[in-house]
């Protein structure tokens, strides 16, 4: 399995062969506050890099989730729909959002590694 990469929209992505697992970062959950509802992309849906792929509703606001790479959704994590509190407690593991079959692995190259992402969140104040 490849290293975890990060997007400027605060998603993380782990690539295993052709399959990418995608979720939101701990930093994102801290910004969002208490998450109360989640909408995930349905299985079979084709999504495009930086395009919409779900919504999280917190007590404060609705926020779009974007996919950091293009591909076809092969699974979504129903357990976070049933219990959105999981997202705040374990966002970068158990509370993944969806899995997709990646279309173009080179899209991974533009994403940040852990060190770059930490620097990004620190500097941008995002």
């Amino acid at each position, binding site marked *: 399995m490849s290293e975890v990469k990060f997007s400027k929209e605060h998603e993380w992505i782990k690539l295993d062969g052709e399959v990418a697992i995608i979720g939101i970062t701990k930093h994102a959950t801290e910004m969002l506050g*208490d998450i*109360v*509802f989640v909408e995930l992309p349905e299985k079979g849906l084709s999504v495009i890099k930086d395009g919409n792929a779900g919504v999280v509703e917190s*007590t*404060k606001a*609705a926020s779009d989730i974007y996919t950091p790479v293009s591909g076809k959704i092969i699974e979504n994590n129903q357990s976070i729909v049933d219990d959105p509190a999981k997202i705040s407690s374990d966002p970068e593991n158990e509370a993944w959002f969806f899995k997709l079959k990646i279309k173009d692995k080179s899209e991974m190259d533009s994403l940040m590694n852990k060190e770059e992402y930490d620097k990004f969140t620190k500097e941008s104040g995002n």
Partner: protein
Amino acid sequence: MDIKKTSLNSLHKKYGAKFFPFAGYEMPIQYSEGIIEEHKITREKAGIFDVSHMGQLFIKGDYLLAEDLEKIFPTDLKNAQLNQSKYSFLMNEEAGIHDDLIITKVKEGFNIILNASCKNSDFKLIKRLLDNKYEMNLSDDLSLIAIQGPKAVKILETVISGVSELKFMSGNWFNYLNENIYITRSGYTGEDGFEVSIKNKEAEAFVEKMINEGAKLIGLGARDTLRLEAGFCLYGHDIDINKSPVEANLKWAISKNRIILGGFIGFDKIKYQIEKGVNKVRVGIKPEGKIIAREKTIIFSEGNKKIGEITSGTFGPSVQASIAMGYIENTFSKIDTKVFLEVRGKKYPASISKLPFYKKNYVKGVNK
């Protein structure tokens, strides 16, 4: 213009507040616990709210002042008992609401608590409507601290003895550190509680005392979920200059004798609306799906006709459901009427619900 800070600003920081700008003030939206936890603390124990951004207006006067104020506010002030508080409105001739407020009859005149975003314009308007005849003071030296929740009475009583004897929607002077401070039994959370008007320099130590007794600071985020569960309006959202108290379903706050006799600004419109009915009315709405219907969400009928708009919506942590309120064509306002809400381009079913969503928990024998 510089952003203003309340006297508790450094205390908020100490307890991990996240700030946001509200009505020109830097206010805590939440602390480290988060909105849902803070909401539950208030419902189950006791929460402390810094509401010092709100206006504390004192108008000095006697019976003549009560008469003059009755020309402005649609509530019974000439017969108000000493220390009795009333919820009322500042309206225009069209009965549009400039502000909603709490008026309390005190020995020397009347105390009025105003919304932060309206307080300066309210002050000018009231001064003008009273022909500048009375001494008026919109205080900058006083903080306003609310303590709310089932444990509020026990905690506040430990810090200031005697407060437990206050009746709901009434106030009195209490001795605190050899000074007189004014406290009312009131709030905006649907819980029993108090609002304490205290000198800025005493506010921080006073709040720390309540924290030591087990109360926790609560941000404006949870204040919003609490008030919405309790069915209370947020000025600038659920009520504003384009909505009347009748449309807002707040007719109960207009004293009965005043509806009959009138003599206040906006009376003609209120009378007309009561007699002829209104086109739109504020209702509670419960979305069925896992969505939040936020402000400006459009409400549709089963026949796909646009029939209204949401003015507040959130997730209610105590009712564990999505809740909202909004204005809807009167013919669709009956409880349990099926409607649809358009969220992100999709229509979700919802139903008209009675208010409040959360049953009030006022201390037995206190609520009149």
